[in-house]
Structures are given as C-alpha cells and as structure tokens.
C-alpha cells in the first residue's frame, strides 16, 4: 500500500496527534497489531475451550488501544513490565504470536520454554520483562530497571503496566515514591478497566480517578480514554519525552474495559449484560480506530480486509506452530531454577 496522498498529508494539521506524528503505514500497522491482539486472544480462548490449553488465562479483549497506544512511542530496547492480563502488552512490544501460542501450549518453543504460560508471558529480547501473577508485583521491578537505565546511562525508558486493582497495593505506593525521589525514567500505566476481579473501583478506591494518586508523589497524573488509540499514544509520547529528558516519572490512567470476565472462572455477576454490551457496541477500541483511519483517508475497506486476512493467517499459522512444537522432557524439570543447572 502506498503512503498517504498529498491531500491526506495536507489535511493532517487538524487531525489528532498520532495522525501528525506517525506515517500512514505506521498507523495501518497499529490497526494490524490491534487485530492481532484481538484474534490472538480469541484464538487462545478457543484453544482453551477445546482443551488444547490448560490452566487459566486473563483476556484483555477490549483493551487493545491501551497496549498499542502506550507502546507506540517506545523504542525496541525500552522495557516494560506487564500483568496477568498481559497478552496485548506482549504483542504490542513486538512478540511473535507463534511463540506466544507455543508458550500457552506449554511447548519448548514458547517464550518461557513452557515454564511460564499465559501469566508469565515475556519476551526479554524485545524488552518485555514479563507478565506477573502478583498484582503490583512488576511495579517495583520496573523502577529497578529504570534505576539501571539511569545508572548505566542507557537512555532506556521503562513502562510498568498494571490494573486498577494494583493501585491499592503497598508496592504501588512504595514504587511510585522511589521513582519520584530518584527522578527515574519510568512510566506507570494504570489500565483501569473498572473492576479488580469483581470489586469495582468505586467500592475499592478512595479517589475517583487513580491518576489523582500521582499528586501524592509529585508527578504528573494523566487521564486518557483508554479505548481511543490516539489519546493513549499522545499521553505516552509526552511521558516518554519527559522520562528521556531526565524529568522523572508520569502516572497515566488509561480508562478502559474488558469485554471478557476476569479469568476463565468468572460468571460476570458483578456487572450487567447491558453494561458489557454497551462497551462492546459503542466503545470498541478497534472499531473506533478503524473508523478514524477510514474517515481520515488512511485506509479503505480493501485495506482493512487485507489486514484481517493477514492476521487470520498469522493466527492459524501460530496455532499450527504451537501444536507441532515439542513438549519439554520431564528430565528437564529442574532446569532454570539455578543458573548452573541450565
């Protein structure tokens, strides 16, 4: 597909930030990756239902714009820490879906060689230091990575993703305070999907907006509509610039919604069917972004179909790769516990 026509480029001055900052090809890539996240999770869910994947998983369907928007301004060697709802972050940071499927299938070709599964999915080579099964567990680790960046003068920025539930953990407060006093290049991204498992933020959290917590640690607190890619990316871009300039951390609250339940055991008793359907029908992040791209002339229906077809093939190929990959030998059970063992 060719770049933006002259007419498109000229009219960009009035468009939201990302349409001025990034090329049409880059933005079409964003749509591609948002579809990739969505279809990956749908594919994983289907494999789970069919008994091909065991354990559990936490799907981020509905939160794709948040993952993509935050990662948009990051360089390949910038780093992230992620959460139990971390598939989108992993793909947004550059992971291959084939190796992610392989991990979910427990295979040696998976990112964690079958030792981690969904909840510990990582891609260290692309800067993803790992999802985390402990709420707020990754936040101090991100601050430590940012301390490394500052001490070793690597220029890396670190993003810590976490959910609304994490904002009531002590680790969140301790980590934000240390990042602020040491002016570290770290961005705290709270993906507020309204519920910590079943408990709403209104019932769990004393402040109305989690971004208000930033004031307690003398850092900017920014609220964005997490379902609008351009809003998220713009806030992330500013926070990355601030971090790289040595001005310290930012807390971004990305307000979003998960279409699926908390995990595979969720009966959705704490929210109404109407609420879920309203978010799916009227605020779906992929639909919103796709519509903008089309309205602004960055893509046409044919281009959208091409993306959907390419993603469908990537997903199908990824699942085949996972199925065909070898399982770990039982004799390797104790590998990776200590470095001298493997």
């Amino acid at each position, binding site marked *: 597909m060719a770049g933006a026509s002259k007419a498109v480029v000229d009219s960009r001055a009035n468009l939201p930030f990302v349409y001025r900052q990034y090329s049409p090809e880059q933005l079409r890539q964003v749509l591609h990756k948002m579809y990739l996240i969505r279809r990956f999770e749908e594919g994983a869910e289907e494999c789970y239902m069919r008994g091909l994947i065991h354990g559990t998983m936490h799907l981020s369907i509905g939160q794709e714009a948040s993952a993509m928007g935050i990662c948009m301004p990051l360089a390949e060697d910038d780093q992230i820490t992620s959460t139990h709802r971390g598939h989108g972050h992993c793909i947004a940071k550059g992971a291959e879906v084939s190796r992610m499927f392989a991990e979910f299938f427990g295979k040696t070709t998976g*990112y964690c060689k079958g030792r981690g599964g969904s909840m510990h999915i*990582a891609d260290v080579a692309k800067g993803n230091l790992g999802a985390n099964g402990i709420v707020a*567990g990754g936040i*101090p*680790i991100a601050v*430590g990575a940012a301390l490394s960046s500052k001490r070793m003068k690597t220029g890396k920025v670190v993003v810590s993703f976490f959910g609304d539930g994490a904002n009531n953990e002590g680790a969140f407060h301790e980590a934000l305070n240390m990042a602020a006093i040491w002016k570290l290049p770290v961005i705290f991204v709270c993906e507020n999907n309204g519920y910590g498992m079943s408990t709403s933020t209104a019932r769990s959290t004393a402040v109305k907006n989690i971004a208000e917590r930033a004031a307690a640690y003398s850092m900017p607190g920014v609220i964005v509509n997490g379902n609008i890619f351009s809003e998220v990316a713009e806030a992330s871009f500013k926070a990355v610039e601030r971090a790289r300039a040595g001005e310290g951390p930012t807390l971004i609250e990305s307000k979003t919604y998960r279409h699926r339940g908390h995990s595979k055991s969720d009966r959705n008793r704490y929210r109404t069917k109407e609420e879920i359907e309203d978010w799916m029908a009227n605020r779906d992040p992929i639909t919103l972004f796709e519509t903008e791209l089309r309205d602004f002339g960055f893509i046409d229906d044919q281009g959208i179909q091409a993306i959907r077809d390419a993603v469908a093939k990537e997903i199908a190929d990824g699942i085949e790769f996972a199925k065909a990959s070898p399982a770990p030998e039982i004799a390797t059970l104790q590998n990776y516990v200590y470095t001298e063992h493997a």
Partner: protein
Amino acid sequence: MDAAVRELSYAQAIQEAMAIAMDMDERVFLMGEDIGVYGGAFQVTGDLVERYGTDRVIDTPISELGGAGVAVGAAVTGMRPIFEFQFSDFATLGMEQIVNQAAKMRFMLGGEVSVPVVMRFPAGSGTGAAAQHSQSLEAWLGHVPGLKVIQPVTPHDAKGMLLAAIADPDPVMIFEHKLLYKMKGHVPEGHYTVPIGKAEIRREGRDLTIVATSIMVQKALDAAAALEGEGIDIEVVDLRTIRPIDRQTIIDSVKKTSRLLCVYEAVKTLGIGAEVSALVAESEAFDYLDAPIVRLGGAETPIPYNPDLEKATVPQVPDIITAARDLVKGVR
C-alpha cells in the same frame, strides 16, 4: 602488622568485601535503609558512602517491599545490587519480591534472565530488641527453590561468601547474626571467595557430630572444648549454607561419629535441624547411628525482652554440653 594474621571484625569483613566488589565492578551498588551517612543500623556499611557516593550507596525510604523489588529489577537489567534489610525480621515486609519474584523470575521466564541480587539480613537474638527484631527466619527462605541461603559465622567466611554471593548469577540471601558483627578473626587481604554450598568441619572428632548454624557454631565449639576434659571428642560441622545444603559432608561426618546433634537458634519445630535429621535418616548414615538424633533449637515462643528469658529462648553452651554428654553416654 603481619598480613597473615590481620584481624577484622565480622562487620568490617563484610564492609571490606562490599568495597572490593565495588572497586572491581561498576555494576555493584548498595541499597538499604540508613546505610549512607548513618552507616547502617549495625555500622556494616560504615563510611562507604564517603568513598563511593550516594549513587552507589543508596539510602532507601522505609519501603522494604518496594526496595527489594527495585533491587530485583536492577539485577535483571544488568546491575549487581546488594540490598540490606535493616533487621531480618523485616523480610516479612519484602517477602513478595523475595519469594515470588527474585526466586522464580529466571524459572518462569525459561532461563531468559538471571537475578544476581544479594540481600543481607542482620538476624538473631541476644540484643534485647524483643520479638520483632530478633528472629531467625532463614529456614523460611531456605524452603524456596531459586534462592541460595547462607549463614557465614567467621569474619573470613563473611567476606569470602559475600564475594561469592556477589559473583553468583542467582539471588543469594545472607543471614548475619548480629552478635557476630563485633567478633574478630583472621581475614586475608584482597579478593577471595568461599564457595556457597560447602559446609566446613570446624573441629574434628570421633564421638559425636554437631551440625550447627551461624552463632551456634561458636557455642558448639565452646561446648566441645569443655567436654574435651571428659574424654568426649566432638566434631563440629559449620553448615554455612542451608540452600543448597551440603549433604555429603554431614553424611560422611555422621558415618564417622555415629551420633548427631543439630544445634540452631531458630524455632526448633520445622527448622533446619529437621532437615538435617531427615537427610541423615534417609541416607546410608542411618545404619551407622548408635543413638537417636537430637535437635537443640529455639523455644516455641517469640523472643522475649527480659534478658534471662531471652537467653533461655535459644540454646546456650551449657545446654549443648548437657545434650552432647547425654547423647555420647547413652542417657535418654
């Protein structure tokens, strides 16, 4: 002074190890509460901040969980942090990062990262600090695969094992008994390491093996000296590392002496003595035993404030003498 007999205190030996490590490797740095100008609650870091600056000797807020997590994050991204918990009791506040993150990160990520973090824990009773500042929690961490847990008892080993810990690619937890900090002993100059995972026979004997940890090694040696006059010849094994445990040295010693007494300060039940007893019972050394295995450990109580009560909570030299004599003489 002759370098061959140079003596340092246990605390000075640790400080020297940290200075050597920082001189050798830019990536090594220290973090902890009041380790800067204050010098650390037990003056272990001392004046290191004057020599290495506040970028490498970092005073943290009173945030054990966050601080431990920052150390873990720095370790997985290329640094070599040494994190001091002000008291080992405060491990309870950092447990999430120690147990769920530091210990498991390499495993969960299929070997894609290493976590070369060192955490130091001033531990034990005898300072009148009562129940929340006197515990011996090393067995808690010794139960977690992925961690290495050591308890050096001499200044020589404190320095050499800390340098080994800093060079180790995996997380190493060091429990330092507070009453050892002022004890002096021979410490060689310069860089050397004492291997993690190797016990040391501190005294050879024929009649009884005492496997002891940390300050109980000193007490066991005192007890052994006292019993020498009664013709009782005791072997004292300084365990030094509780994970990974040196099974072979214990088994070989028990095969030689045919009797085993375990002495440790932590609460007796479900402690390191249970592990040592069980590994002997499961091994070929079981057939060599001439008497039941005996454990001397801490009382089933928090550490009390009153000094007499506090002493009565943990094994003392007379307790070890009585237990050892009874064991050798067949008194049940």
